[in-house]
């Protein structure tokens, strides 16, 4: 199963990596913010 699609590895997806990490940071930041509100109550 590891033949043709591995040519994706040759594609430059640096922008994708950065983009998804921005999404990840938004998720973590929102979660931490509400967690802090929970602890403060």
């Amino acid at each position, binding site marked *: *199963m*590891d033949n043709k*699609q*591995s040519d*994706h*590895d040759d*594609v430059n*997806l*640096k922008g*994708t*990596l950065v983009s*998804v*990490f921005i999404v*990840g940071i938004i*998720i*973590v930041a929102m*979660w931490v913010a509400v*967690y802090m509100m*929970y602890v403060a*109550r």
Partner: protein
Amino acid sequence: MHLHKYEKIWLSFGIVSLIVFLSVVGVSAFSQDHTPSGGMETIDPEKVNETAPFDNPGVTQLDEDTYQVAIVALAFGYTAPDLRVPAGKEIIFKVTSTDVVHSFTIDNTKVNMMVVPGRITTKSYTFEEPGKYLILCNEYCGTGHHMMYTEIEVY
């Protein structure tokens, strides 16, 4: 099925984050007793007013550091006379309903309890700050839903 190198990095980051979230809430809930409101006690919804502790709703001191507050929710209010509790002590809220589903929600606290007929919802909470707190119903219960509120005084 092949994952791009970056997708592996991303999914690992995502899954680790999710595990961290779960661990934080899990440890806090089960080792420090920060579970959400709930409870497995049942009650006959038509005999609430003759069943303890709801036959005598309001504040009862259980021991030095613990108080119990029994409240009956009904469309559209709460039978809870004279709600005054001390700050810094553990308050155990016990709430049930004689009619439809309500909530017992104290503004600006962790107390946000669904109230289901036939069930007793329990939540333990310690107030830090004295003052008057707004209590309201946040589960739709009929025409007067938005008028269903009361107050608790913390001294």
